Each structure stands twice: as structure tokens, then as C-alpha cells.
């Protein structure tokens, strides 16, 4: 174990430099499972720990990352009317996607983990793994062109006010990733709402607008021209084609119902996710693969997912029956083709810390998220999508649901006496 000896040798002193030691400890336990043995209580323990739990969730969303990155590029060139086939201009689409996504990912994680490490050092406990998932989720639920400083402020807000103020991982009331998004949504609404923000690389998404490329694009260009591939230079002279809209299906549905949506996007495109939207939430099949992973490993609660689906379906049916606006008349099953229902269901609502903790509570919690989220989506013109607000709203009420369920258990027991 030469490597282990070397790593042990460079361990910083805990008293002299607590921050460095915490940092070291975080990375060390990441590389090596500790040699700790059980003391008192059970003598053998389950192989499962929080690191493994969290990383499984991150693995479950990897396909969303791959697709989301590529789709950033695809939407960009789609606006220019270039490379209409999904796999055409593969290198350019991927490069553009990476240029947009990587900075978001790095900033979100550096800021978030930095704050986590600092708090861990200050409180003198190990680094908890909660931000592994939050840090992976945050880039996926942001628009691709979000200014990095806004992201940094949002993440700092979410981690400090939303999590550390309550005591860290396991203690927070609201979902950290959604808190970051809701911060951007209300503090900088122009970066998160409207038809302008979902297609990247343009000052303004309107016919005739030209794309802008930065130094990173030039760097890729030199690589591509050396390899004899298409370059961004060729694309920079193009402009957004007539009739292109950056509007998401939800915005279109609000204006003109299902017909208005299908005029622009085919149901197939919406299902596979080659449409504008937040980075990771557009592709339904890939999210459903993530759902499958989470359900097979039994990490996420199937109760929440199922009841959320039932709640949303029920509300959509009721709205179908009401039928007062074009959006209400969208057939209930097509509601799932649009927007980020599946992403919210798979990765946001099932967060065990902020969800209800009793099984009965989970049924109610999931159902109400689906129910309320659909109301917000369809009935409220100010919010194009409802899950973020519905989940945060139900996060707030989850402890109350648990309280009454626990209380009924207590009353039942006391009655027996």
C-alpha cells in the first residue's frame, strides 16, 4: 500500500490548519473507505453509506447531462437554420454545449462545495455529501446562458440560507437545488423567464440576430480546422431564420393550446427532448432511465413518484373537464410531453430530506405536488412551469403532514392503554 502511505504522509495537521485538514479528509474519504470499525451496537454494518447513495443519484442523471449538453448546441444551430438533423454538425453542437455547460457546472460546484467545506471546517465535522447531488442538479435546471455571477450568488444563497443556516445536510427544509433556481427566478427574472433565454449564444432571440462566439469557440475552431471539421467561423455569418421562436412548448400552449405547440414542435421532438428548455429537463426517455435506476436501487421513493403522477393526472383531467382556456383543453396525457414534470418527479420531489418522512406522508406529499404544480402551470400566466413552486410549497408543508401522521400513531397507542 505505497500509495496509501504517501497519502497518509501529506495529511495536514488538524489543529494548525483545520480548513486544509477538512479538505484533505473530504478527498481522502472519497478515495479510501475509512478503516473505522463498529463500536458497540451492531458489529456488522450494511455496505450502504451516504456517499454511495448520493453518487447513485448523480449516476442516474448522467444521461441528462450528456443529452442536455448536446441539446444546447443543437438548439443554437437550429435557430440559425443550420444542421437540422440531430447528429449533423456533431462536433460543433457538442463543443458549443460544453462551452456553455462546463462553466455553469464548475461555478456551481466550486461555490457550493467551497461553502460546504468552510462550514465543515468551522464546525469540525466531516464533509457531508449532500452537495454532491445539489451541485449536479443545479446546472441541469438553469438556462444555458445564465450569467455565472448570478449562478454563484444563487448557489451561495441556497447553501448558506437554505442549508447551513438549518444545520447542514439532513436538516434543511427546502430542496437546495430548487432554492438556487427560485432565487434566480425571482431576483433576476429576465434571465429565467420568457422566450429569450432558452436558446444560447444570441443577444436576442429574434429573426435576423447573429450569434456571438468567444475565445473558447476560437480555441475549438483551431482544433476543428486542423482536424478538417466544420468550424464556428462558418456559422458566425449566419443569422436566426425567419419564423424561429425560442418559446418553450408551455409558453406556446398557454397562447394557443395543443395546436399551437404542435405547429412548432412535433410530439416526437418533445418526447426525445430536442426542444428549448432548462439544460437537463427536456429529454423524457433519458430522465425515465434515471427514474428506473432510482427505483431499481430503491433510493428514491416510488410512493412519491407514483402519487405525484396521479396528482398531476387528476388535476389535468379536471382542467380538461373545465376546458375554459386553450391550455386547459390540452389532453391530460400530453401535459407530460411538455415541461419538466419527469425531471421534477425523479430528482426534485424525491429528495428524502425535504420530502415527508412517513410513508403515508409521502403519498400525500407527492399527490399534492402533482396537483398544485399542474394548477400553477396551467392557470397562472406569470409562471410558465409549476413544479419548482409546488415542490418548495410542499417542502414547507411536509413536516406538518408528518406531524399529523405521527400524532395519529401516538393517539392510537395511548388509546390502547
Amino acid at each position, binding site marked *: *500500500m505505497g500509495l*496509501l502511505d504517501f497519502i497518509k504522509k501529506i495529511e495536514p495537521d488538524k489543529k494548525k490548519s483545520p480548513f486544509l485538514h477538512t479538505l484533505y479528509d473530504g478527498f481522502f*474519504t472519497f*478515495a*479510501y*473507505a*475509512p*478503516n*473505522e*470499525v*463498529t463500536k*458497540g*451496537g*451492531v*458489529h*456488522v*454494518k*450494511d*455496505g*450502504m*453509506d*451516504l*456517499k*454511495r*447513495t448520493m*453518487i*447513485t443519484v448523480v449516476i442516474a442523471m448522467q444521461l441528462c447531462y450528456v443529452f442536455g449538453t448536446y441539446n444546447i448546441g443543437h438548439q443554437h444551430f437550429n435557430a440559425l437554420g443550420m444542421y437540422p438533423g440531430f447528429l449533423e454538425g456533431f462536433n460543433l453542437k457538442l463543443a458549443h454545449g460544453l462551452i456553455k455547460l462546463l462553466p455553469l457546472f464548475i461555478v456551481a460546484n466550486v461555490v457550493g462545495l467551497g461553502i460546504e467545506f468552510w462550514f465543515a471546517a468551522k464546525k469540525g465535522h466531516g464533509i*457531508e*455529501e*449532500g452537495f454532491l447531488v445539489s451541485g449536479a442538479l443545479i446546472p441541469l435546471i438553469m438556462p444555458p446562458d445564465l450569467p455565472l455571477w448570478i449562478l454563484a450568488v444563487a448557489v451561495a444563497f441556497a447553501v448558506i440560507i437554505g442549508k447551513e443556516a438549518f444545520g*447542514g*445536510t*439532513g*436538516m434543511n427544509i427546502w430542496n437546495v437545488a430548487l432554492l438556487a433556481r427560485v432565487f434566480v427566478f425571482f431576483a433576476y427574472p429576465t434571465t429565467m423567464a420568457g422566450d429569450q433565454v432558452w436558446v444560447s449564444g444570441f443577444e436576442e432571440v429574434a429573426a435576423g440576430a447573429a450569434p456571438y462566439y468567444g475565445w473558447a469557440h476560437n480555441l475549438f475552431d483551431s482544433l476543428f480546422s486542423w482536424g478538417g471539421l466544420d468550424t464556428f467561423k462558418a456559422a458566425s455569418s449566419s443569422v436566426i431564420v425567419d419564423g424561429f421562436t425560442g418559446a418553450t412548448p408551455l409558453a406556446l400552449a398557454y397562447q394557443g393550446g395543443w395546436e399551437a405547440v404542435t405547429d412548432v414542435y412535433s410530439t416526437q421532438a418533445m418526447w426525445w427532448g430536442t426542444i428549448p428548455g432548462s439544460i437537463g429537463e427536456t429529454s423524457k426517455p433519458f430522465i425515465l432511465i434515471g427514474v428506473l435506476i432510482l427505483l431499481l*436501487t*430503491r*433510493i428514491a421513493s416510488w410512493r412519491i413518484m407514483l402519487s405525484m403522477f*396521479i396528482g398531476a*393526472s*387528476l388535476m389535468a*383531467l379536471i382542467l*380538461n*373537464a*373545465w*376546458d375554459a382556456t386553450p391550455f386547459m383543453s390540452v389532453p391530460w396525457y400530453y401535459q407530460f410531453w411538455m415541461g419538466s414534470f419527469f425531471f421534477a418527479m425523479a430528482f426534485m420531489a424525491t429528495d*428524502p430530506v425535504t*420530502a415527508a*418522512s*412517513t*410513508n*403515508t406522508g*409521502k403519498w400525500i406529499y407527492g399527490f399534492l405536488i402533482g396537483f398544485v404544480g399542474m394548477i400553477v402551470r396551467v392557470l397562472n400566466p406569470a409562471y410558465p412551469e409549476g413544479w419548482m413552486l409546488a415542490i418548495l410549497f410542499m417542502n414547507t408543508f411536509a413536516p406538518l403532514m*408528518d406531524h399529523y401522521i*405521527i400524532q395519529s*400513531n*401516538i393517539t392510537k*397507542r*395511548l388509546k*390502547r*392503554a
Partner: protein
Amino acid sequence: MRVYKLTFLLALVIFSLPVSAQSSSGSNMLSTSIIVVGIVLVIGLIVSLADNLMQIEAKKNNLDISKGQFTLFPSLSKWFGAKKPASIKDAPYHNLTKGFDVKIAGKASKEIAMGNAKTFAILPPNFNGMSPIPKVEVNVGDEVAAGDVLFYDKKREGINYVAPVSGEVIAVNRGAKRSIASVVILADKVIKHKQFATPDLSSVTRDDLIAFLKISGGLTLLNQRPFDVIPDDDVVPANIFVSTFDTAPLAPDYSFIAEDNAVAFQEGINVLNLLTDGKVYVGLDGRPGKVVSDTFKNVTNAEVHYFNGKHPAGNVGIQIHHIAPITTTSKVWTIGVQELISLGKLFLTGKYDAERTVAITGTSCANPKYVKTYVGANIGELIAGNVEGDNNRIISGDPLSGSKKSSEGFMDYRDDQVTIIEEGDEYELFGWLLPVSPRPSMSGTFPNALFSNFEFEPTTNTHGERRAFVMTGQYEKTLPMDIYPQHLMKAILTGDIEKMEGLGINELTEEDIAICEFVCTSKQPLQAILRDGLDMMQEQS
């Protein structure tokens, strides 16, 4: 039950909606579906009202409504639940769906050897709630017979803790703050027993019986819940429970051990009947493919209940919860199979016979088998020559709720199992992500479910560091009781006595939630937390 009803209603509503949506055309869809929903709700209301009236009527006639016979709603378990095996004729059968079996290699083979232990000890710290310095009645060098008093609790004078074997007292060891840690006896080759004058069971009064049990050490064979303590002599237990099987990993097979002790077992049951105003309940192994000894099957004077399920279905605490739960005011007694046989022998022969058949088990055990010895045997002597490797953990009891011992240590008072497993004090590169060796786990992230009969060779590694409670529903999935363990733990940590009581702390002891501690992703020490809570409750009462 209520949840099923609600989901049943909800499903009705949901399925009726698309039907109505298809049948009606466009504009009057709203009114149609409202009518349909209304009709469904009204029908549901009428059915549920009728259901409640029926149950009220049944209650008035003193019928048991908990079995689900008096309801109009179909019980889901009736459709999907396991069928009661034909061999269990009329006896009540409890099918527990929650729980988890930790499969570990090193099960004792069905052969019984004579144990080699020469020294035996009774350890006062084994008895919860006993004052740390009991009054020791013997001095080093004294000769004692099996059944002679060794010490008693100053708080509860008269309850004798007696010698398991005859021989010379060779040590009275002290622990922290001069507490008594152990009273050690070097055993004679042939055990001499003190002869007690046993009362006649057909005519004895309960008071006389209790008095005899106090003197002869018989009372210390029993256990009182809540809190897991030696019974109070002034308490009349609501019921007495015996579990005749153990589902803990590598646990001894009592059907094998008690095969030839049917008479003593039955005599023990007869004694228990005199101690309670309620019933004596015997929990039997109802798992498919398990052989239940006739000793247990043919028992009379007791009500037999069969249990099927994974660990902890064999724990007496779980069985109490499903037969007749402990209430906030009631106390119940429990007794183990081998203790019950000792109790029976005490009345049959007038001798305190503390013989135990102990299962020596574990992955580091060279030849796992059963050995015959006595209560409190020296572990090192018992397992000498039967251990592989030198970096092992020796456990008195099962690997979930037993206690760690050194090789000079003695077995705990109620244990009849020794487990030897390898220590896990090694670093493992990316061990949390890509484990090198297979390990038992309830998690679906390991492919364990595909190899359901694989016997693991786990070490004592914690496989992760302690964290705050994050995951939910894990404990509920493994504890087959109507209890919310995670909320109970939080109530204990915050010292909320009323909530602890309401959430059922009185129904639990450490062994019941050991499996929850095993599966805990956050590696929380649940047994230690629970004991803190029980101590708090005991102080209050």
C-alpha cells in the same frame, strides 16, 4: 386499513374520469365528470358508512374486528399476502412482510460437543437498571454450589443472583468507580447442586411461588418489559411471552437444542401460568421449510402463535406487538427457551441447572458447532482451538445485538451464541463505490438481491461515516411494527419523554431495532440512542 380504503376510493375516481371523458362530447364534459365524481363519492360514502356501522355492531357484540372479517372493503393482504401453510391448522398465523435477513457464513453444524470452559462468571452489568455495586455475598476462596447466592441488588433485596456452577470463587472483579464487573467461579469437574424444596404447583399461592423464585434465582431467568429488566416481585404481568425461534444471523436453532427437553419445557410453561393473570403465549417458527420441534408444537397450557417473516420476526418484542401489545401502563414478562427449560428443571428436580447449549458460529470460526456448557462461560476457553486468523472480533450473542468480548471475557447472562468475525480495520480504495468483497446490504445498489442464498463473510468495518439522518423509510421497512423508529429516535435525542412514550418506546428493546441500525445509511448508533431513551423513561417511572 384506512390508507387502503382511501387509495381504493382514489383509484375508483381516477379510473372513472377517463371513461367519462371519452363518453361525453366536448362542452358538457365538465358537468358529466362532476356528476360521475359525485356518484362515485356518494357510493363510496354509503359503502364506508355501512362498513363503519358493521364494525360498530361487531364491537358491540364483543367480536374481534382487527382480523378484517367485518369490513366491506377488500383487504389487500388477502389478495397478495402469503397463504397460511396447511401444517399450521387452527393456530393464529402472523405473516410479517417487513424485515431483513443478514446472511452470514459460519452457521453451527448440528452436532453437540462438550464445552471446555472451566471458569464461569455472572456479570452484574448485564442486568439493566441494577445498582452498580451490588451486595456480593461471597468472598474470594469460598466454595459455592450451583444455586448458591452470589450477590443481590441493594435496591431490590431478596432477589438472589445465584451461581451457575459449583466450585471456588476465584475473583470478584471491579470496574470503573468500584462497580462490580464480574464474580468468577472456577468450576468443579462434577457440578454439585444446592437442593431446593420446591413448592407443589397444584396448591402453591402466587406469593409463595414468587418468594421461592426470588430465593432460588428463578426470577432472574425471567425478563420484564418495558426496559428489559429483572422482573419486579410486586408486578403481576399482563401476559408472559416465549419466542421459540431466533431469526438473528447465525442464531442457534432452538428446535434442535430443546428436542429432548419437552418435559422441562412444559413444566416451565406450567409455572409461568401461575405467574400471570393473562395468558402464556408461545411464538413458533412459521417460516416455510423450517422444522419445528414437537417440544414446542405439542405444548399445552399456552396459546401458540406462528410467525413467518424475516429478521426480527423471531424477536419476542415483535411477537408481543402482534399478539397483545404492551400498553403505557402494562408490563409483560418474557423468557428464553433455555431459561425456560432451566426453570422447568428447577421445579422438576429442585436443582438450579444453568446448563446451556451454546452455538459457536461466525466466519472466523474453524468448526462452527454447538457446545454444552453453563451460563456465563469463559469465552476464550469455550472457543479455544476453534478460531481462524488473529484479527478477530469475538461477540457474545449475535452480530447485530451481541456485545464485544476479549478472549478472557465471559458470555453475557442471557446469551447462547458466540460469533467470531474478522475485524475490518483496513482502508479500501474507492470502497464505497466499488467494493472489493461482497457485503450484506439491503440496498438495491448492490447486486445482492440476485444471489438471495449467498452467505456473506462480512467484517466489522462500518462501511462509511456517521451522518445526520438523511434517508427515510429504511427503518420502517425493516421493523415489522406499527412504530416510526426514526421519529422515535429524534424524540429521544431531543429528550421529549411524552413523545417517546407515544411513539412506542416501551415496546422496544435494543435487539428489536438492531436490524434498523444495521441498514442505517447514516450509520447512526440506534441501539445506544434507544438505551438512553429507555434509561430516561425508567428514571421517570
